[in-house]
């Protein structure tokens, strides 16, 4: 299959599958369609990633203007990576929470929920592949609307939902206005074409462009991140699903859009701007990592744990953005990969443990009780969390240190990496020691052997894939650097 037809299949397969699910609204068929579609999309995205590594950029445009919805696309390494990440994450989340939907949703809502979920795959495929500003906004809108619809079914928070819907509509109007401005300035909605024109901007227009840039990024981020806090307090099983969807899938979309608009759309302007705010970003990162390193002793619940590792990840992201060279963007790639694989896995494990106990949130203490079946996946994750050689965080640190030596902020960057790693290592050791104490009591030899063999397999896999990951990270960074 050629690279272009593969890309079209990624865009249209979920659309056809969701239309099919609307036409045949039988639960078993819809669920089977989701499973088959998600697995096919993961396989196609893998193929797409390999195609991108071979051809650098896969694009097609029939020059149909604004009506070319879904027919024009441009996939570079960043799009291909996020496409795979989002499909993989979304599918895993679905498989993980299927039982909960079955138990907690009313029968009439189940089919609607599954249909909407399938439709989201189409929206996501559109966001990550579209190259037109207008098309991206349309796909984002479809995605956001399906999220509101899902929230309506799952959480029954009518009042809040409406409030956020109204807020979202206002932001959409703002973005449409920005689209109009961009159309007037560049007479173009294709992002690649705009990126070429933006370097020709006169110095007198620079301040206007900076304001334009800031508003676009803020609008997209507020659209993507705003409902985060509203579902945080919910404790039901379905809200866990919703949280994972928001934290991992929606944030993938948010990160992608921010990177695409910052680096691809505005190019050198972003790098210039980031260079100016670099001291602030580095100071912010240093404060974040130091604060959480000082809070290590108080880390006793899984909420603390997540706050901790997410803030550490965020600090590293700020640093990579502040430096914004080839190495730092490679480091960013590995931080993102780590976020989507390792943090998600921790989220699942802690959700499972929390489900089996009444003591909500206190997973660290609960681990000390009878949860030996979770020990070996946790051990594998600790290998990744402690930034052990050849783990994702190790590569992230590797490239960040390399980037730091080209930067004038070397001592500060060095300090940030050292402190953030210190936190990772100590958190991992703390968790490992808890597990080890319990294992000595349980004498579950099979679990020990299994965990060692699994760790061994993971290490071999990491060894085998390190060269591929390096090449992918390089392409990822090159696709962002103007």
């Amino acid at each position, binding site marked *: 299959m050629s690279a272009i037809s593969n890309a079209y299949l990624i865009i249209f397969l979920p659309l056809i599958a969701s239309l099919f699910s609307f036409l045949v609204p039988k639960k078993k068929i819809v669920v089977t369609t989701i499973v088959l579609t998600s697995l096919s999309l993961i396989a196609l995205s893998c193929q797409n990633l390999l195609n991108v590594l071979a051809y650098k950029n896969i694009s097609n445009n029939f020059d149909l203007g604004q009506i070319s919805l879904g027919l024009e696309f441009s996939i570079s390494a960043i799009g291909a990576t996020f496409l795979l990440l989002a499909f993989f994450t979304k599918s895993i989340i679905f498989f993980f929470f299927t039982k909960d939907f079955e138990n907690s949703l009313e029968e009439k809502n189940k089919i609607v929920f599954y249909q909407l979920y399938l439709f989201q795959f189409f929206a996501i495929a559109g966001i990550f592949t579209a190259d037109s500003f207008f098309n991206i906004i349309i796909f984002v809108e479809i995605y956001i609307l399906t999220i509101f619809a899902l929230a309506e079914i799952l959480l029954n928070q009518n009042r809040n939902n409406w409030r956020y819907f109204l807020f979202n509509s206002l932001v959409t109007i703002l973005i449409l206005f920005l689209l109009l401005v961009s159309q007037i300035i560049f007479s173009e909605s294709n992002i690649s074409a705009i990126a070429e024109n933006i370097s020709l901007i006169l110095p007198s227009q620079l301040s206007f462009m900076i304001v334009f840039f800031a508003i676009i990024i803020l609008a997209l981020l507020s659209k993507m991140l705003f409902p985060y806090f509203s579902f945080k307090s919910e404790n039901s099983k379905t809200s866990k699903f919703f949280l994972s969807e928001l934290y991992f899938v929606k944030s993938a979309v948010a990160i992608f859009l921010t990177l695409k608009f910052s680096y691809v759309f505005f190019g050198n302007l972003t790098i210039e701007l980031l260079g100016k705010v670099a001291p602030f970003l580095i100071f912010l990162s240093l404060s974040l990592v130091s604060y959480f390193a000082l809070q290590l002793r108080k880390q006793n619940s899984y909420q603390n744990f997540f706050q901790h590792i997410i803030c550490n990840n965020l600090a590293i992201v700020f640093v990579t953005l502040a430096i914004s060279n080839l190495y730092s963007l490679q480091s960013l790639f590995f931080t993102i990969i780590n976020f989507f694989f390792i943090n998600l896995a921790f989220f699942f494990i802690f959700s499972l443990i929390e489900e089996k106990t009444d003591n909500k949130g206190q997973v660290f203490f609960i681990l000390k009780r009878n949860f030996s079946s979770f020990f070996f996946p946790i051990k594998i994750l600790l290998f990744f969390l402690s930034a052990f050689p050849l783990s994702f965080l190790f590569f992230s*640190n590797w490239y960040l240190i*390399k980037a730091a*030596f080209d930067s004038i902020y070397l001592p500060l960057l060095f300090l940030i990496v050292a402190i953030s790693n210190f936190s990772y290592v100590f958190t991992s050791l703390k968790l490992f020691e808890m597990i080890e104490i319990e294992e000595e009591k349980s004498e579950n030899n099979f679990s020990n052997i299994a965990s060692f063999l699994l760790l061994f397999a993971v290490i071999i896999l990491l060894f085998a894939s390190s*060269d591929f990951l390096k090449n992918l990270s390089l392409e990822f960074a090159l696709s962002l650097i103007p």
Partner: protein
Amino acid sequence: MFLLFVNSVIPVFGYFFIGFSRSSKLNKMIFKLLPVLFLMNLFGLSAYANKGANLEIFNLFSNTTFGFNIDKLNFLLLLSLGLIWITFVFHINQISKFLQEEITDNLKLKITASFALLNCLIISNNLLTTLFFYSFLLLLNHFFAKDFLYEKNSKLCIIPKLSFYLQSFLFFVAVVLNDKFFGNVSFLLQNNSQHLNLLVLYFVALFFIFLIPYLFYQSFKSSNIALIYISFFVISGFGSLVIFTKILKTIFASSASNLIVSSIFHYFLVIVFTIILINAVLMIFSKNLKASFFYLISNQILLSAISITIFASFDNSKIYLPIVSSALSNILILLSFSNFNFYIEKLKLSSIKGMFDNLKISSIFLIFALLNVLPLFPAISLYEKFFVIKAIFQKELLWIGIIFVLNFFFIFVLGCKLSYFLLSKIEGNTKNIKSSDENYNQNKQEDLTNFELSLNLIPFAVLFIMIVLPIFLQFKIGIFAL
């Protein structure tokens, strides 16, 4: 190739077997058999030592492959490792009947794991693979220290924990810089006269915990058998020396002589001088015998590192000498000291005053061991120091000369102090033992008396090797004709 693979697999297999098997008899047998198998395999490998052999498993990033190789240096290092291993195994086997079964099992497991990692460290074919195994070794050292050395919940535990972390982090930074400066992480000769600071960074990174041992010792348990912390120190010291030797022999082979005369190395030597001085003063004035030997070993490891640098500068072909000499000398010191310590603890004596009457053989071995490090005994240490002293006089290496003279003086004072205590006649001494006999089981006492003879068989074997080895090396007899 196959032999190299078997060589890397034997210790790992042994570790898994001892770790997961429930049969203590089988475990004991495997524990004894492993070093023998390892040495037998080494004889097979000796055929490849001259021409070299490579086993490449995976392509890693940064133009390197994950794999193992054997050459002359690696072979001699493996031979030293085999000798240390077999010594440890027999010694642990002999004292195991006087220790709790839990402690022995844990000790056996950790010792086997350490040797498995040291083996991989020696034969690893690039710095990235080395970093991988070294990180595991440091992690293992942390667990070793946690299980056997620290007082539980001691606030000072943070010092060794932090030291291990910083050691691994600094080594990681050094490897990243190696990649940045030379474009690869292989053990290949590089044009590196501009990057001598990197070599100093390697030194600091690899010997970090030996640079602050006086802080480190504070959190150690006061009542623990010497062998445990000895094992710990020998293993971590040996690992660091191995890496340092390999780096100097390959990457910095051409610029080591520049390093010796460079100003940065002189500043660094002043720091090492200060540390050695602090250690030496603590060694002499410490009332605790274990503390004295702790500082002595730290100093010997630092001095071995300096010796390695000298050999790398003046006689690259004999670069293995310091590490072989250091390994054997330290083992002799530690075994004879361990015998003393064991006796003192079993008989609940307060000091070693007048012990010469009770432990004549152990006392003689202890004196031989100290004479060997001075070096005033015709053994491997004297053979090694001959070349070092020659280089010091030829090149007028003032600071290194001062450090070695200082070391000689302080060990001499320690030897005099120990000899005075051992030989002094105290009337109460015999009574002391007899009075403790009343509380002590008669059978055990007899066991212990015979035990002294059996315990000294291993130090005798080590001493014999130390005397004979220089002859074999000088005249290139047998497998030393490489």
